[in-house]
Structures are given as C-alpha cells and as structure tokens.
C-alpha cells in the first residue's frame, strides 16, 4: 500500500511525501506512468528542478491582456482537494452509472462535454446539471486540433460552447482540448471565450484496457491535493467511426474506468482527499500572481 491509508496531515509535507512516493514507484518501473505525473515526481525528488522553476525573468506585462485566463495542469492548494473530471460525454452507456457512483459518494465532478453528445443526448446532459455537477467545454466533435486550422479550431470551440450553454443554460468556465492537444489557437480562443484551459495531472495510468483494480490502484497512488484527474464518460471520435478498431478500444477502456470509479471514490475519501470540481479546487488555490492594473 504505497501512499494509501494516511489522512491529510501537513499540507506541504504531505504533498511532498506523496509525490516522492509517486516518484519512487515510478522509478521502480510501475506500469503506465503518465508523462506529466512522472515529471512532477522527478521535480519533487530533485529540488534543483523545483528551484529552477521559481520566478524568472519572464516579462509578464508584454503578454496579451487576457486577464487571468490560463492553462492549468494542477493547482497549488491550501486544502486537500483534487479535481475529478470526465471527458467526451455525456453518453447513456457510461454517464448514468458515473452519476450514481458520484451521488453515492457525495462528490461533484466537472464534465468536459462534447457539443455533439449534448445535442444527441440533451436530457442526459441536463441530468448531469441537475445533479449539481460542473459543465465545461470539450469542443463540438473532438477533432485533434493539432491538425486543424485556426478557423476550424475556433468553430469547434465556439460551437461546442454554444451547444452546451444553449442546451443547458449554464456557462462554460473551462475548456479542455481533445487529447490535451494545446495549440496556439486553442489557448487564444479559450481566453477569448473567457475559459481557463484545464489539462490534467493524473490519468487512469494503465495502458491498454487494463482492469478496474489496476486503474483504481494507479489513481490511489498518484492522486494528491491540487491534482486534476481525467476520466471519461464518452468515446470521443469513436462516435463518428463506431466500427473502427480504436472505437472498440475506447469503449473497453471507458467501461473499465466506470467500474473502477466507486473504488477510487472510496479510497480517496479514506485518505482524506476531498474530490470536487475544477472550481472547487481553484477556490482553495494558494495566493499566486494577482491581476495587474488595466492598461489605460
């Protein structure tokens, strides 16, 4: 049992210890480390990397004035809160079971919905809202935006936002690009839409289909305060090519994640880790660089 079982004690120390354990586990060759987690674990083990990431000579004032809209992988927090997020849905095959599990655990999550799915299953999407979860933008049709023009990118992002906001009557505060593919255009249009771009710091971790136990175990070991966990309640591009081999892989992987969810929620609660929406985590963000004055 690495990292599990202990409650949330000292804020900084606990996080360091947790990350160090994660790093040790990574070095020991545990399967399926997500790149972001591995690099964070390295950072925790190697203080010079951390030191090198202190305030540098970055000239902040010469960047575009887009307020505090930013790209978030994880959040420096003052309380033991982590974000749990679901991408690509809603989908009747997965979302209802996820809602049940979340309800049973008393947890609210952020759902990065595809405009396409909201249009296709509007009542299900409304049900997600009705249960108090947070809704965010995951584009219209889940194209890999690395290969799309700025115009197409904008259309995907704006249309996704519109379908969600018009159908559900909520405002999208966050955006997540499909596959986490950050491009210049996605960052720019997200800021224009007033959405923070939220990537993730912890994934299911297990390559291939895996088992619910393996996925839950990975999350137990790597998910700590301030992390953003990505899971799925839909299949992304597979909606447009349901017979492709990757579509079946996607469906199998989603099924495993859904089955792993109750155990993940229970283990997080046992460790004293509070799961919530992206907004919940940002609400306990440690003070960072505040806003400059508007330029006259």
């Amino acid at each position: 049992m690495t990292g599990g079982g202990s409650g949330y004690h000292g804020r900084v120390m606990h996080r360091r210890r947790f990350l160090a354990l994660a790093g040790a586990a990574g070095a020991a060759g545990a399967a399926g480390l997500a790149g972001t987690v591995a690099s964070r674990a390295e950072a925790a083990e190697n203080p010079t990397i951390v030191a090198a990431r202190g305030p540098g000579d970055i000239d902040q004032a010469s960047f575009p004035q887009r307020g505090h809209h930013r790209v978030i992988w994880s959040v420096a927090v003052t309380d033991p809160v982590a974000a749990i997020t679901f991408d690509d849905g809603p989908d009747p095959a997965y979302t209802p079971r996820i809602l049940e599990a979340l309800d049973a655990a008393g947890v609210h999550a952020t759902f990065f919905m595809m405009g396409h799915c909201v249009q296709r299953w509007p009542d299900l999407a409304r049900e997600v809202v009705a249960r108090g979860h947070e809704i965010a933008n995951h584009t219209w049709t889940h194209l890999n935006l690395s290969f799309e023009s700025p115009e197409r990118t904008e259309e995907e992002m704006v249309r996704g936002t519109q379908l969600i906001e018009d159908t559900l009557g909520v405002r999208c505060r966050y955006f997540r690009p499909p596959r986490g593919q950050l491009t210049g255009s996605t960052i720019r249009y997200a800021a224009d839409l007033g959405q923070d771009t939220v990537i993730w710091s912890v994934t299911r971790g297990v390559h291939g289909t895996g088992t619910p136990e393996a996925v839950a175990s990975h999350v137990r070991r790597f998910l700590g305060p301030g992390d953003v966990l990505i899971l799925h309640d839909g299949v992304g591009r597979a909606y447009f090519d349901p017979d492709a081999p990757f579509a079946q892989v996607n469906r199998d992987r989603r099924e495993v994640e859904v089955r792993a969810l109750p155990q993940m929620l229970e283990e997080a609660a046992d460790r004293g880790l509070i799961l919530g929406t992206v907004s919940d985590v940002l609400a306990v963000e440690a003070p960072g660089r505040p806003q400059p004055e508007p330029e006259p």
Partner: protein
Amino acid sequence: MSAPAATTGGAGPAAATTQVETGRLGRVLSLDAARGLAIVILLLAMHAGPRGALPEQLKHPEWHGLTFADLFFPLFLFAVGAALPFSHRASSFGGVLRRAAVLTAIGIALVSARNLTLVIPGVLQHIALAYVLAWLVLKLPRRVQVGLCVAAVAGYWLAFLAVAGPGEDPWGRSGTFAHVVNTWLFGGFRTEGLPQTVISTVNVLAGAFVTQLILRVPDRRAVLRKVAVWCGVLVAAGLLMALWVPVNKKIWSPSYTVLTAGTSLFWFALAFWAIDIKGWRRITQPLVHLGTNAIAVYVLVMAAMAAIPPFRGPLDDAAHAVLPPAVVTWIWALTWLVGGWLLCRALYNRRIFIKV
C-alpha cells in the same frame, strides 16, 4: 489611502480650465471636452479585457501596432499639460509636488490593493511624475523647452539602440532599454515604467504648448490653423519615424510619442472647433462634465472595479444566461461610463471639483 479633498472652486489638473478665465477667450471648454473624451475611451477600454466582446480597436495591441484605444492615454496626458499654464496651484513647486505626491499615493494604494503587495508603478503614478517633469521643463526658457522635447525623443531612441546587442531587436519583447531599466527598478517589465513615464512628458508638454498658444494668440481661428499645422507635422513625423521605429504604446516608442502628440492635437482641434468656434456646447456638455472631474472618476471606477470581482461572477452568470456575450460586455462597460458621467454631472452642477 488618502481621500481626495472635495472643494468648490478648486483648480486641480482636472478642473483648472473651468475655473480660470483666460481673459481673452473665456473658458477653454474644449480642453475639458478633450479630457472628457480621453476618459470615455479609457473607461471603455478597461472593459475590453478577457471576457470583453468590445471591438478590437478598443483593445491595446499585444506589442507593436496602434489601435484607437492607444490614442487616449496620451490625450489625457496632453490635457494634464494643457491645464498647467492656467493652474494657480501649479504656480509653486511645493503645490506641484504636493499634488503629485497625493496622486502617487492614491495610485500606489490602488495598484497595491489589487496586488496584495506593495507595487510602485501605476497609471496615476505615471500621470503624477510626468506632470512634475513637465512643470520643471516649463520653468525653462521657451526655446529650450521645445529643444528639450526633441532631444528627449532622440535620446530615448538612441538609448534603445544602445542597449540592444548586435543582431538583437531594439524594440522586441525582451531586453530593450525599457525592459532593462524597469527590471532593475521594479524586478520586471512594467507598462507604466520609468522610461515610458519620462518620455511621455513630451505628450504633457504638447498640451502645455497649446495652452501657451491660446494665451498668446487672440484669434481663435488663427489658433486652430496653427494647431492643425502642428497636428499634421507631428503625425507625419510620427509616421515617418515608424519606418524605423515600431509604434508601440507599451514601451512608449519614440514614434508612438510623436504620433500621439499629433493625434492629441487633432482631438483638441476638433473639440476647439466644435465648442470654441462653432459654439456646439449642449452636445459636448457630457464630455465637459467628465473632463472636469476626470481624475476623480477614473480613481473611483478603478477602486470600484478592484472591489467588485467577488460579486461579478454571479452577476455575469445571470446576465449571460439571457443575453449574448457582446451585449453583456457593452452593458457592463456602459454602466460604468454612464454611472461615472452621472456622478460627474451632479458634481459639475454643484460646482464641485474634486482635486488631488
């Protein structure tokens, strides 16, 4: 934070021209209107930020370039300068320093409150220092004043060239003269930094020169002709300089300095023509209201906006649920503007001019 003192019949930089008779011309309302116009655009542009759906021309360029919004902070500085020759309080250096100190203190308090830590540079600080520097220059003989402006622009230009290493862009996003000085002083680049403030004194002086012209030349049409000529000369010079020096507000580049001195003359000439020659007073009255308490309304709006974020989210959500984003942005921006105007009108009608 020291509160601005409300007095009647005061003659602060924001109010001087309504209070002081020039003798030959009566009040130069056009200066108030020009300052009011500057405040209108400044207040609107403050809302062009992240959620803003205002036109691109009301936003500042990301680095090089010129938008409509870029023309109005220089116009505000121009109006500060234009009030200088009228101002009783500007007759002693002690009065000037005291006013600049109060303005700086309010500015530091505002921007520090926003940042939860002590921050020295800021918009009001910029205005205050440029005001003091301009006052000092105006004590010199007139020929020297103009010569000093030309020398300052040339020197500023040379300083950028001197700081850039071989093959480096003297006007780039890092390592320029403005970056080096501001980083040394404040730990990083600042848009309201010291080099930019010093060179923008030229914009303040341009306003003072125009007032001197008005005081010297009795015929309004002759004034207008001269102003129009100088407007043309400065705009042409600024554009010519732009062949070598990018127009850039954030580093207050030499071409930006000269060009906006010219455009400020244009806005002033427009107001002068409409008000002091054509006599269109009713339609320009709201600008005069805003112009006579310009600093006060700017400070109040800045302070209120700094205090509002905790309430803004729910308000925004409610508004966005029923209205398109562009409409919400305009309502938000215009609410501040109209609110500021109503306040200024009430003050104006009671002859209250808040001076700092």
